């Protein structure tokens, strides 16, 4: 139960928690719950979903999103966002649009989309993009490396294209599910 003190009078509070299973990476590693990476990831997820969920409709309420990574091979932020979109949609919480995310990087003067763990560990610049596909608006764009501004355009384009591909997939699955469920419900 959330604390009453943190309740906002005009909108809902979005609370995201990220955790990573010990067996998710190649080497079994115990990750304490409040560590820096989890907190930062939780904060990024919160910013992403506060942009997408229509929080004005649920004043004095809290929406909890808990994500746990079972297998990590790069692109964990993107996977978390895509999974959480489906979860929020299934719960019936009103959202502006799907939120589709993908990571992208720049290696050997080529923009790469959806980096794997090996490519991320290589140390090149990497970018995480969360997109609202219908309007093309960006929910979150994050990069903590150095990239020449001439290359930014191509990397951003690669990430956006990959995110739109993810959207096509999610859209198809959700529509199929809605069709099934509406047949069952009569």
């Amino acid at each position, binding site marked *: 139960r959330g604390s009453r003190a943190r309740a906002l009078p005009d909108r809902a509070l979005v609370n995201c928690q990220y955790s990573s299973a010990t067996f998710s990476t190649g080497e079994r590693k115990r990750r304490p719950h409040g560590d820096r990476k989890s907190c930062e990831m939780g904060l990024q997820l919160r910013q992403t979903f506060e942009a997408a969920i229509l929080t004005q409709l649920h004043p004095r*309420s809290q929406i909890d999103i808990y994500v746990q990574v079972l297998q990590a091979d790069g692109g964990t932020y993107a996977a978390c966002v895509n999974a959480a979109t489906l979860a929020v949609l299934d719960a*019936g919480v009103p959202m502006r649009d799907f939120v589709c995310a993908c990571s992208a990087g720049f290696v050997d003067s080529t923009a790469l989309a959806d980096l794997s763990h090996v490519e991320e560990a290589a140390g090149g610049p990497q970018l995480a993009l969360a997109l609202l596909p219908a309007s093309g608006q960006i929910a979150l764009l994050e990069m903590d490396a150095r990239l020449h501004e001439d290359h930014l355009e191509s990397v951003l384009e690669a990430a956006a294209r990959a995110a739109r591909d993810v959207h096509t997939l999610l859209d198809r699955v959700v*529509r199929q599910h809605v069709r099934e469920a509406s047949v069952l419900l009569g």
Partner: protein
Amino acid sequence: MAMEMRLPVARKPLSESVGRDTKKHLVVPGDTITTDTGFMRGHGTYMGEEKLIASVAGSVERVNKLICVKALKTRYNGEVGDIVVGRITEVQQKRWKVETNSRLDSVLLLSSMNLPGGELRRRSAEDELAMRGFLQEGDLISAEVQAVFSDGAVSLHTRSLKYGKLGQGVLVQVSPSLVKRQKTHFHDLPCGASVILGNNGFIWIYPTPEHKEEGAGGFAADLETEGVRVSTEASLRTSSCLLLAMKWNWGALWSPGRTLRVPAAEAPSFLPSLAVSG
């Protein structure tokens, strides 16, 4: 020694077998419903750049000039007159807070509860102090919705002999969108169990009381009597059937009178026949 084995096979999607006769307009968040600005927007939609956009995944419902999108699965939204089954979470001054699977906790005011003996008087300070004697945290009650507050919270009342604290039985929680609104929500199944279909998705299955006393189920069910034991078993089996149906997504909408016999090959032999429409 040869043995016959059946391997799991993916079920065929139902929409293919039933056919494309659904004239419903199904949408997902981000879909444009219409660009005509003459419509009023209802739940599940929002206005963006001169067009009406859906904000939940579900079917579009159009009533004259009002367009709303009914989501597949939501929290319970109270309407006046609904029967709900809820669990007491808090005992406050002059009211109880009841958890009914909705966005905000429902409220049961002390003045909306019948006093023992059916007296009609103003609730005094002694009644307030005795509140915990009637209902404590963790108790289950059946009640009716009296009013809905502006923020969506629901106010309940138990001003009838058929509502009140629930005794021995089993609670099954399903999605509220699966329970249709009907004339009566209290049913007696032929197998010896009785069921209360809460509109909020909480379904209470209890052994049919031998003699119709007030209230659903007794506080101290007498398990010695053979009849009561049999009907308790029946209620437990009914709840397992329900859980199985939910698991296999039979889309159970409750309307007694339409029976669906469970195929013997798919279900254990002891399951009683059940009123499920799917």
